[in-house]
């Protein structure tokens, strides 16, 4: 069982009646067993073969987490074709490159929205001849010859399967572990996207190691809510499910994830820090609105949890009194809170993707959720480092997973050699050679070092770590994360490399600040209005000053306190290329785009006029102008802070 199709057929045999995929449809959870899923995949594979999909060809897959999207992915793999999942929220133009790059002829789209995008780029992508779609809604009058509906596909597949029942199994047997299994386009923090080629072996290997490490089995359940085009989602809700036979649950709609999570009660959970942050913000907002008695209980018991919760989870010694207090808190606060978050059954929770604020991380662990950090990337099939139970820290990502070799270059760059390493960047030998050296080590671009206990510590991207003009280490992401822990701050961009001080752009969180404004009977019209209020500036300044006070206690970076800031007139947006599709700030791009604002910050001005081109979701562009205020924040002398402490 060295390929995904072989694993799928194996599950259909040994646990045919166990749930493979669940989806909430018309308000009711519908289950597909492994046998049903395998049968559908078989028929689909037959139909795709009849449509002309061949071994070694690529097939684009654009859609949210849906059983049929997964079935299409598995069917392509059965035939030895290579699925290329694309981000479903990408605009049409972003899909041109992958489709042209891999000369893709077959594409699977979830619904009308995706079909429309593919049809839009059809003239630019002559290779694309077939577009399959799952949800027929709104597509009844589309007459394009390239379009084929899922039901029709399935029907023709079943018919041809009846004529030659052994066809798919013969195709599956031809597949080998060293064949490419999938290609993922990197989110493109820098330059053009690169297609990362993974074989069955490089995806199955790490998935299996990690599953054994965490003792994942067929009783586990996961909620598939992140974009399938991201390798993490593919690993958690596809590769590992195929390896262990656990059940994948697809939410009803993106807006219902919270409710679905509560209904499903996943035991295995992954969330990037931004999702955990958003959840905590919601909790904070709801607690602010709660009655005083609930607030009192919450604050009292959260103090207990933050003192001993993490230690209890780690199995460290805790006094009897604290145990009793925590037990009471669990009954009154933590248990209900876990339930509201849908995390009552979470046995293994991971967070990764970027550094997580220590307080944020501690919050989840303190209420008894076994959240751990892991480290990995698209090129390494996710699992490079995992924090073992009992060795969880907020500032490391854990030791290497068995089978993974790690070392650091003199520039502090992390280098990796592992069975999960990608084969190559598709049709890009130059980039491949740059990323993978002669010894087979992958250059991650992440800067870090080994902590005393052998855990890996990542501080920032190698290229982002800089220094202030007087020499102090400047790790912008570290500062930004500290700022983002405040519920009022959604995004921050810090500048300081080769400058005399650190200045910052702030994006306020419209939900949290909106709530705050409502409570003060402050009318406002929208984000831009809120962002320009003096009251909001004061609020943000207080947050920054608390970060500064914190920083003043850390000797090495005490000088990177934030001196001046402004609140941006718009939310940073992936559609404007200010964020990547995984919502990471593209600091360099933002710095260039708003160069005038950066200069104003350093020139000591009180306000700056901004005129910006904005791109709306429908692709139109417009201009916008406003005067942004600039404010100073108080900084603390390192020595003074020590005295105060």
């Amino acid at each position: 069982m060295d390929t995904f199709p072989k694993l799928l057929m194996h599950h259909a045999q040994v646990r045919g009646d166990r749930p493979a995929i669940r989806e909430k449809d018309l308000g009711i959870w519908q289950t597909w067993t492994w046998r049903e899923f395998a049968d559908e995949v078989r028929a689909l594979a037959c139909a795709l073969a009849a449509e002309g999909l061949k071994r070694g060809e690529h097939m684009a897959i654009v859609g949210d987490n849906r059983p049929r999207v997964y079935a299409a992915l598995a069917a392509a793999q059965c035939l030895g074709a290579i699925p290329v999942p694309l981000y479903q929220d990408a605009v049409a133009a972003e899909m041109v490159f992958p489709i042209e790059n891999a000369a893709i002829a077959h594409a699977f789209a979830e619904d009308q929205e995706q079909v429309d995008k593919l049809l839009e780029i059809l003239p630019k992508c002559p290779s694309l001849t077939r577009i399959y779609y799952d949800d027929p809604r709104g597509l009844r009058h589309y007459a394009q010859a390239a379009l084929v509906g899922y039901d029709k596909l399935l029907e023709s597949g079943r018919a041809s399967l009846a004529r030659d029942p052994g066809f798919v199994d013969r195709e599956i047997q031809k597949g080998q572990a060293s064949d490419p299994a999938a290609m993922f386009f990197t989110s493109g923090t820098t330059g053009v996207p690169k297609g990362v080629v993974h074989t069955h072996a490089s995806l199955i290997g790490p998935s299996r190691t990690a599953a054994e490490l965490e003792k994942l089995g067929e009783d586990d359940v996961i909620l598939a809510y992140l974009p399938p085009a991201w390798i993490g989602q593919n690993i958690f809700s596809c590769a590992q499910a195929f390896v262990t036979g656990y059940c994948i649950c697809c939410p009803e709609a993106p807006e219902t994830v919270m409710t679905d999570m509560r209904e499903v009660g996943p035991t295995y959970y992954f969330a990037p820090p931004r999702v955990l942050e958003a959840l905590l913000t919601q909790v904070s907002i709801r607690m602010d609105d709660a009655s005083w008695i609930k607030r009192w209980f919450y604050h009292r018991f959260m103090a207990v949890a933050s003192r001993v919760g993490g230690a209890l989870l780690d199995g460290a010694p805790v006094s009897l009194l604290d145990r009793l207090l925590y037990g009471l808190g669990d009954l009154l606060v933590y248990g209900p809170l876990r339930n509201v978050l849908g995390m009552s059954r979470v046995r293994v929770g991971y967070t990764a993707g970027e550094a997580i604020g220590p307080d944020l991380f501690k919050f989840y662990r303190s209420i008894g959720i076994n959240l751990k950090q892991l480290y990995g990337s698209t090129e390494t099939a996710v699992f490079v480092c995992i924090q073992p139970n009992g060795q969880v820290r907020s500032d490391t990502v854990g030791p290497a997973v068995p089978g993974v070799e790690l070392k650091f270059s003199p520039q502090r760059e992390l280098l990796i050699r592992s069975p999960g390493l990608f084969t190559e960047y598709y049709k890009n030998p130059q980039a491949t050679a740059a990323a993978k050296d002669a010894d087979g080590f992958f250059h991650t671009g992440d800067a870090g070092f080994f902590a005393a206990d052998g855990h890996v510590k990542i501080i920032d991207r190698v290229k982002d770590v800089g220094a202030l003009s007087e020499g102090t280490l400047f790790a912008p992401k570290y500062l930004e994360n500290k700022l983002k822990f405040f519920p009022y701050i959604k995004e921050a961009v810090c500048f300081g490399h080769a400058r005399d001080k650190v200045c910052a752009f702030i994006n306020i969180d419209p939900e949290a600040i909106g709530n705050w404004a409502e409570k003060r009977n402050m009318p406002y019209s929208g984000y831009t209005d809120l962002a320009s209020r003096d009251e909001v500036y004061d609020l943000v300044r207080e947050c920054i000053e608390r970060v500064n006070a914190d920083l003043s206690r850390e000797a090495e970076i005490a000088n990177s306190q934030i001196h001046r800031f402004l609140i941006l007139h718009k939310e940073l947006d992936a559609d404007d290329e200010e964020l990547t599709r995984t919502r990471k700030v593209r600091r360099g791009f933002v710095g260039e785009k708003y160069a005038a604002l950066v200069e104003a910050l350093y020139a000591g001005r009180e306000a700056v006029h901004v005129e910006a081109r904005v791109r709306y979701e429908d692709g139109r562009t417009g201009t916008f102008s406003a005067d942004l205020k600039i404010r100073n924040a108080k900084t603390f002398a390192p020595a003074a802070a020590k005295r105060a402490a």
Partner: protein
Amino acid sequence: MSGRHIGGVMLSVENVSLSFGGVKALQEVSFDVREHEVRAIIGPNGAGKSSMLNVLNGVYHPQQGKIRFGEREFADMDSHEAAALGIARTFQNIALFKGMTVLDNIMTGRNLKMRCNFLQQALWIGPARREELKHRRAAEEIIDFLEIQHIRRTPVGRLPYGLQKRVELGRALAAEPKVLLLDEPMAGMNLEEKQDMCRFVLEVNDQFGTTLVLIEHDMGVVMDISDRVVVLDYGRKIADGSPEEVRKNQKVIDAYLGVAH
């Protein structure tokens, strides 16, 4: 772009006049609605648009004139009669049960289709249970259609205005009407909400073949989505025809922009 087939006249009013005391709301208005079409009624404030809709679904009883629905002819209609015939509507000021959830509000739209008596329903015995499941499925299909899964269990009163409008459309759809009367479905909405609503209205028309009669103030919307437009002014019909024809009609231009005296 559309595969729907506009059929013959299914609903018409002939010489309808309606007055409240001395106020003449409608004066000898005649027009017809064809099967599967989107028919708009427009006019300045106080032109009698809502009164016309109220006549069509039996809230107001005209003093004069006839209403024809299919084979049948009425001097006036009763609301329950209109509902039983397959005429549903939404209101200018949302008329939902604010304290009830979205799902429950939509279920009330299935009321006319429920056959079990109070006792059966209260005891939740066989037929009542089967019936409830059937109607719940229909309601869920509407929830899916209108993309409001995430607010299924939310009390309507807590929803923003645009979503309440959508829920009201959902409740009207739950009755599986032949004719759907929409009283200013896009009033007070922002551009995005209007676009969404237009999409839903057109999809209702296209997918279920529902005939639509709508009152709307946004001329862009009216011109984009309706097949024929009737224009009222001071209770009289002043124009009737395709959006193009109506747009060019001098009387319509005068009614909207005013004329020099």
